[in-house]
Each structure stands twice: as C-alpha cells, then as structure tokens.
C-alpha cells in the first residue's frame, strides 16, 4: 500500500555458514507499518526479530547481508538502493533506534547531555539550539532536573534514567519511525511501567510510528496496535492486538500464549511447547513449527504454508487454518 510509512517485502538476511552456503536468519519476511502505528514483532530468542529491525536500519553487522531480491520502502524511498550518505541522513533524522541495553549504547566517558546534543548537531542545528532542544527533550521524557542531568555521565544515572536518555536521543529529530528493540527488558517492573507509559505517550502525542521488538506479550498488549509473530526466521501470524491476543489462530501463537503463567492456571500444569526452538541452518522442512506442533498433519512436513487470511487484518501461515477457512 502506498499509504504505508514502512513496507518490508520478502526480506531475507543471511550469514556465512560452516561450508560454502550461507545460512538465513531471516527468511522472506513481509510486513508494513502505517504512519503513527505501533507494530510489535514478537518471538523467542533466535527467531530473527532483532535482525529484521537492524535490516530496516541497514545496520546488519558484517559478514551478514541482506539477500538480493527484497525491498524495504520507507516514506516512498527504496532504502536498499539508497547511497550510504543518504541512508546516514535518514538514520537518526527520519528513523531512530532504541536498544535494550542503554549502558552499552551510551558512551561512558561523555556526558549524556553532550551525547544528545551531538546527535542533534549532526543534523545541522547550532550548539545553542541543540542545548535548548536537549533540555526540552529531557523534560519531555520525564527526566527530573534536566539542566543538571545534562552534565551527568551515564554511570551516574539509574537504568530507568539511562533508558529515558536513549529515548530522548531517539526522538531528538522527531523521526517518523522509532525502532525499539526490547526497550524495557532490562528494567525493573515499576520502572518498566513508567517507560511503557512514556512510549505510549510519545507515539500518541508526536504521531511517531514504532516498530517494537519484544518477547513479552504483556508489553505487546500495553503498547502495540498490530502484532507480527516470528518463528524460525519467518512471520507465522499477523493481526491486530485484539485478534492476536484474543483469537490467535497459529498453533505457535496459541502455544506461546498458553505457556505464560497466569493466575487462572494456579495449581494446574502450564501448557508446554514440546522440544526447543530450532537454530538457523537447522530449520525443519515444510512448516518450521511442525515437529513441535500438536496439530501437524500430512502437508506440514512437506509444504511451506502460505499466509491464510482469516480476517481483513489477520493472517496465519498454517495448513490447518487454511483447511478450516477453505470453503
């Protein structure tokens, strides 16, 4: 759709394997984000969600690479053919990233104020304007006593405050898209609640779209508009937040949601998903979930399931769903 802010089509990312051939970590992933929308990309470790986010920023670490034949369109521009200087100008100004570990993303020997101001000056503001903007930003992300906090070094700030600094840097140039990779995973419960509220407010007040990478369905429910579930390099189900959390159709999504310890389940056994997540390079044939799926039948081991549309907004890649929906 042309109204999409970001459209990712058939994205594959690969790394060199042990032998000659390359191993895919992301495999033909397609999704889009409308302006102002928050899409959560959910999955367990190694499913390829973080690599998908890095690919959108064109920050895949070498020797990894984006496979030929995919398209990433952002604000109507083809990102994969954009020259490096243009890409650099887009990053930070038009799209920005928040990482899980604020400690490793901030320079420990430079004050946080200088780091935020540097990010602003890079995009053409004077030092004075940058300082003014940094103060505004610190206040906006709820950092108490912003003026003195500008002069603080990262180690002098708590985890929650560091994450607020990261968010301030990310939104400094009023980007249209913020990619947040597990932004609350390293934070304590009471601080996580504060940061989730901040992310919600920012998205609502500034109209910034968010691509949220997470493994936590609780976080998804708090901030996402739409959800895409990834398993073994592929998106297996997409839909609105209500659809995916209320009526998940893919057995993997269903299994994930049922395996979360809930109060109603007290005293009964948790539903397990048997086995373990297959590693890249060891993905099973057909539907990659079939060896762990309780509903697998003949075609699952052979045929890669195509997405089946179950509503205008929800689709699942599952042979069982396809059979149920077929007239």
């Amino acid at each position, binding site marked *: 759709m042309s109204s999409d802010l970001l459209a990712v089509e058939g994205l594959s990312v690969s790394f060199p394997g042990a032998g000659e051939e390359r191993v895919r970590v992301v495999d033909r992933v397609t999704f889009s984000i409308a302006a102002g929308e928050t899409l959560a990309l959910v999955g367990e470790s190694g499913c390829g969600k973080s690599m998908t986010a890095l690919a959108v920023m064109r920050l895949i670490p070498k020797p990894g690479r984006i496979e030929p034949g995919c398209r990433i369109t952002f604000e109507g521009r083809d990102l994969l053919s954009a020259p490096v200087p243009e890409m650099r100008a887009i990053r930070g100004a038009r799209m920005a990233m928040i990482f899980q570990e604020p400690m490793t993303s901030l320079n420990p020997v430079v004050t946080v104020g200088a780091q935020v101001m540097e990010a602003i000056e890079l995009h053409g503001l004077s030092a004075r304007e940058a300082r003014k903007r940094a103060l505004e930003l610190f206040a906006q992300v709820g950092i108490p006593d912003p003026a003195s906090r500008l002069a603080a070094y990262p180690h002098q700030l708590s985890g929650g405050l560091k994450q607020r600094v990261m968010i301030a840097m990310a939104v400094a140039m009023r980007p249209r898209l913020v990619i947040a990779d597990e932004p609350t995973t390293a934070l304590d419960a009471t*601080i996580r*609640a504060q940061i989730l509220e901040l992310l919600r407010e920012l998205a609502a007040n500034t109209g910034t779209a968010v691509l949220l990478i997470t493994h936590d369905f609780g976080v998804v429910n708090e901030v996402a508009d739409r959800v895409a579930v990834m398993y073994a390099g592929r998106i297996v189900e997409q839909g609105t937040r209500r659809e995916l959390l*209320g009526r998940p159709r893919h057995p993997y999504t269903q299994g994930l949601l049922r395996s979360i*310890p809930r109060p109603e389940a007290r005293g009964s056994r948790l539903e397990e998903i048997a086995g373990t997540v297959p590693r890249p390079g060891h993905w099973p044939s057909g539907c990659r979930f079939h060896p762990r799926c309780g509903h697998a039948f003949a075609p699952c081991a052979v045929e890669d399931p195509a997405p089946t549309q179950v509503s205008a907004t929800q689709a699942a890649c599952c042979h069982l769903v396809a059979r149920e929906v077929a007239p």
Partner: protein
Amino acid sequence: MTVLSAEALLEVRGLRTWFPIRKGVLQRVVGHVRAVDGVDLTVYPGETLALVGESGCGKTTVGRSILQLVEPTGGGIWFRGVNIAGLSPEAFRAYRRQIQIVMQDPGAALDPRFSVRDCIAEGLDAFAIGAGEEERTERVAELMQSVSLDPATMWRYPHEFSGGQRQRISIARALAVDPSLLICDEATSALDVSIQAQILNLLADLQRKRNLTYLFITHDLGTVRYFATRVAVMYLGRIVETGPTERIFSSPRHPYTKALLASIPSLDPERRSTRPVALGDVPSPERPPPGCHYHPRCAVRLESCSRDDPPVVEFADGMSRCILSFQERQAPTAAA
C-alpha cells in the same frame, strides 16, 4: 527475643549482610552497602516461598547468605532448629548438602570443561555419595531421567545443550545430593517463554515427588502468582510485606506491593492495565533513605514516613511494614 516456629524448615531472623565500601590507597572502609538489613523469613516444609523484589533489593544476597556464599554481618539462620549462621565451614557442610541452589544463568553455573556427567556428579563426589565411579554414573543417569534428559548424552559438554536443557542439568546437579531446600535464584528468568513453562512444570513435578521446599527468588510476578504458596516482598534490604499468594495479589497491604502489582502488564486484549504507581527510581542501597526506605517513591506517604522507621505490623495472614497498615489494624478496634 526470638520466637522460633517449631514447624519451620528454615527460619531467618534479623539477617544483616553488609558489604564494606573501601576507598583510597589504604582501602579504608568509608561506608557499607546494606544489601540485607534486618530480614525475617520463615519457610515451611513442602511450600514455595517466593522472595520478590526489583534489582538491588538484596533478594539474591539473602539466598547467598543462607548458603554462606557470603558471610552475614548479623542475625540468625535456623535450619531444622539449628542456627547455621555462625557455623564453621566444616560444621556447615552437613547442612550445605541439604540446601542447594539453582541460578539464573545455567551457562555460568556449569563448568564448561566438565562433561554433563561430571557436572552432575560433582556433589556426589564432594559428599562421597555412592560407592565408586560406576554407581555414581548410574545415579547420574537416574537424575538425568528425572529431569527429562537423555542419559545417553551424559558424556557431552554443557555448551552442546540449549538454555532450557542446561537449566535441567543445573537442577539435576542440585538434586544429586538429595537436598530438602532448593533455592531457585531467577531460575527461569533467562529462558524463553515456551521453555520457562517446561522448567516450571518440572519444578512442580519434582516438588511433589521429592517433597522439596523452594525458596523462589524472582522479579517475575506472573510466575510468582502462578507458582508460589506464599510471598515475601523485599525493598532495599528489608521485607516490606509477607502473606499467602492469593491474598497478596487480591488485597496487598504495603504501598510498594501495590505499585509492583500495578506494573504487571495484562494479557487481556480488552484491558490495558499497567499504571506507573511508584514514583522515580529505586535509591542506592548504599544510601537508603531515612525512615521508611520506600517513602520517596510512595504516593500515599505521611509526613512521619521520612523520619520514623515503619512498624512491623502482624496480621493473621501476613506482615506489612508500613504505618498505614498499623492504622488499618488499629481502625476496627477504635471503632468498636
């Protein structure tokens, strides 16, 4: 006076574990991090007591103090009625066998140079359990089966296993010496959701089969609500509330417990639930605030909270360390 409960398996009274802060060339002690600052806990046989709190609250140090992995500064730890806090390492050994620990990161807890067989058998060797190598190997095979691992893989090395499998190895290793109390320190926190469910089910099965008692240290309230019999909530070195799990979650008394519960994200798509209730950040345990440690973040604090230590208020179903709980308990009597 310390009143000990006759039926308790483990009783912790007034436990203090302070770490010295040293500065300068002479490494003079300039202060203390009061990681654990007067903690009382009672663990009954066969139950799961969850010790919950945010990072830096001292919950891990409580576990490590019980195991004498760090030396407590003061207080007592009674295990089956014997104070084990002051025991010499030799005298403690007999108790060390009965109290085992499973930690968060199974990768770091298992020696990468040991085969799985040797990782699990280490405790058997240390306590001279089983006559000879062969019998120990047999015992390792049984242990591996009890945690659903294939004994045929016992000669492999930990790195060849997934995170969930490594946590099973850690559990088998802890169970090898047949402990009665298992301290699980964030034992499921680093695992993916689908694997976490497997490990929680395994822990529940083992508890039933072996009549194990768990001290379950975690920050994950969802798991606590599902898994624990009773809950102790810790904040900056002190226990602020205890009680049966259902009561804690349905009608918490301490403002910090209320804030923690309000921060649990809901999974109900018709309801978004988290409200940031606690203000600001957790202060450093190096300089805990005066009075009630929670007062700078508390939305319902009174003037006296910044000055006076909060009273320990006992109810029939648990304890709350808060002046408001004191007033709550007084209220019905005053009305009568």
